[in-house]
Structure formats: C-alpha cells, structure tokens
C-alpha cells in the first residue's frame, strides 16, 4: 500500500496544480499512497522512515508509565538524528524537573507542553509550545519538515469511551505526515506515531480530519513545534 514513488511507478499528477506554486522542500518525502478506503492521496512526510521512532510508552528503568509526552520527545529527537531512548529522556526529565514525579511510579512521567518544548530544546532540538492551532497550520509545519507533538484527548483519538474523561487533553502523540488530495490539495488527514497502546498500527497511523478535529483542534489545538527543520537524513 505504501512505498517510494519510484518503486511503485507513481508520479505526481500534472493536474496537482496546487503543488505548482509551492516552494520545493528538501528532505521531506512526498509520495502517492492509497488510504484504507481506496482514496488516493499525496503524502508529505517521512511516515515510513519514522515508524521506527515510536514504541509503547513505559519502557524506562524508573517504572514511569505516564510518559506519552516524553516518548514523543524521544521520537522527535531521533527524527533529528539525536540518539535517545525512553530511559535516557525520562531520566533527564526526572532529574531536571521536567516531568511529574510526585505520585507512584506508574502514575509518573507526565509532562506539559512547556516542559516538552524545554526538554527538546535542552537536548538539542529547539522547540516551543503553541495553542489554538488549526489543521492547516499543522499541515504547514509538517510540510516544512518540522517535528511536531500534538496534545490530544485519547478517548477521541482511540474512539474509546473509557479514555474520554471530560474531554480534556490527556495524551501526546507525534505527527509524522499529512495526506492531501493529489488534485485539489485538500487535507485528508494526518499520520501519527502514538505510544499509548502498543499497537504496531499506531506507528504511522492514519487519522482523518474529523478525528483530528475532535481529538486535537476542539480540545485546544495545542502542539509543540520545533524551531528548526530537518535538513539531513538520520
């Protein structure tokens, strides 16, 4: 279903007029793909390459399980070629007051958008927190080659009533790509790396715009965005 444009024999359609005026971006993959519902899309982002940056949260030597934000930071660091593991990131965060350590270990590891940005910056990838963003803005950041963590409601993201709470932000994931209609350029959805459930399919998972609206935009459109773009392959 996915693959390099050359190996699949696909080329960008000459009718993709919305792309003609776009500035060429270096080192951000673009390829045609097909969604589960057989919709053809243009994917921008290193979705396949970055699948390996994700893993189930909780793989650290402190026994912290609330580490979605920290694993998201680890993911972004690795996208930028910086060696990091969940253990190294969790230990750094705990030592420097950048994650919650006040409860029992399984309940620890929670971060805020500010501490995520600070952690990334201190570990080599300058970043900042933003609020009230839209899917259009998110698309721009992905297409620019920035690392992006979004703060979401897990119940909406997973279609899981028990994780809905009262609709608040309660989880963090990394956005690795955006899918557009190849002809009109309309945003069809995004690809995410999600550490919460441990499903293989949550690495490079496609999330449509409706789910993004409820899981992310409607709960504040909060994200952490790197100040720099990826310019070299890892």
């Amino acid at each position, binding site marked *: 279903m996915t693959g390099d444009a050359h190996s699949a024999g696909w080329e960008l359609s000459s009718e993709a007029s919305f792309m003609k005026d776009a500035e060429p971006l270096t080192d951000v993959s673009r390829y045609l793909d097909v969604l589960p519902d057989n919709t053809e899309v243009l994917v921008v982002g290193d979705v396949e390459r970055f699948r390996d940056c994700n893993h189930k949260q909780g793989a650290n030597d402190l026994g912290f399980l609330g580490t*979605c934000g920290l694993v998201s930071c680890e993911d972004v660091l690795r996208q930028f070629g910086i060696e990091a593991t969940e253990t190294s990131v969790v230990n750094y965060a705990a030592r420097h007051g950048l994650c919650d350590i*006040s409860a*029992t270990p399984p309940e620890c*590891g929670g971060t805020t958008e500010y501490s995520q940005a600070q952690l990334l910056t201190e570990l080599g990838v300058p970043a900042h927190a933003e609020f009230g963003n839209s899917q259009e803005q998110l698309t721009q950041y992905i297409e620019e080659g920035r690392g992006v963590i979004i703060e979401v409601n897990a119940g909406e993201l997973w279609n899981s009533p028990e994780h809905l709470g*009262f609709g*608040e*932000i309660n989880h963090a994931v990394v956005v690795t790509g955006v899918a557009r209609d190849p002809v009109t350029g309309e945003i069809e959805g995004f690809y995410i790396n999600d550490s919460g459930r441990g499903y293989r399919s949550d690495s490079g998972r496609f999330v449509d715009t409706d789910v993004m609206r409820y899981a992310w935009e409607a709960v504040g459109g909060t994200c952490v965005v790197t100040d720099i773009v990826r310019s070299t392959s890892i």
Partner: protein
Amino acid sequence: MEQLALISYLSVVAGNRRGATREVDVPIGHAVSLALPTLRYGIPAYAAFASPAVREPEQPVVQGPPDRWWLLDARSGAVAMFALCSLHPFAKEQFTKVTLPQPVGTVAELRQQLNEIQSLMDKLAPNFLRGEQGEAEVRHQLHRALRARIPQVLWPQYEALAPDFMAWLAT
C-alpha cells in the same frame, strides 16, 4: 442594582487546564475534573482538580487521588489560586486510588452529554454565583446530568470541591 458580571462557563472550560496566566501546571495525562462554581472562598469562582491516572489499552482507567487544584475567578477568568493537595488540600477527607467504571455510551454520545452539561452549567452557574435560586427544573436537570456523567466513585471529591454548589443543586 448592577448585576455581577461573570465569564461564561464555556470560556472557563476552554482555559481550565492551562489557566489564564500559565500558573496552572497540570501534566498531560492527568485526569482533569469538571469545573464547578463555588463561593466558599469569598469570591465567585470556578474550582477544579486534577488527578494522576494510569491508562492502559483495553483496561479501565485507574485514577489516583487529586494531587492539585485551582480556582478561576469567575469575574475575569484569572487564576485566583493554584495549590498542590499535599500542601493545601481542598478537602479534609483522604481520597484513595479508584478504578473508574466503563462509561455507558459511545464517544459521540458522551461528547453530546458533556455538551449538555456545559450548556446547563452556562445557564445555571451565574444564578448560583449571584446568590439566586435559578429555575428548580433546570437545577434538577443539571443534577441528574452530573450524576449520570460523574462516576459514583468520584462523587465525594466533587462534593468536597464545591459543597455549597452541590448542596444548592440538590435542593
């Protein structure tokens, strides 16, 4: 007499976790309560708390006791107070870790239920904060909606957070 000017409940919800001045520090992953109006601190305010929570796939959520809470001034939305429960608890009771029951309904139904609660709160909270009775039927409607949505195991925490509002609601 000039009526007390209050911010809307929906704007409280929008700013609840983050707070107007970045003074509310709540780790992502904590469970955040519904905000409830209260006059117990001498100003019209909305109170809320947050609790650490462990979420595993296909497992019920296990929620620890509240570890932080805050007050938003209902006149301005500004954070009037933020405190760690270990230093300044909002309740005398010691709460314990609880396993939350499976909610009844789909995500869409629960979302709609929450919208209804927020709409009712938007209508009623100003009555309470101004010392008015409000419409009895709307009070009872909100009481029923909160009872349906807030897990029974968490109800004592809400009663402790805003005992005045909860008592007013039940009259």
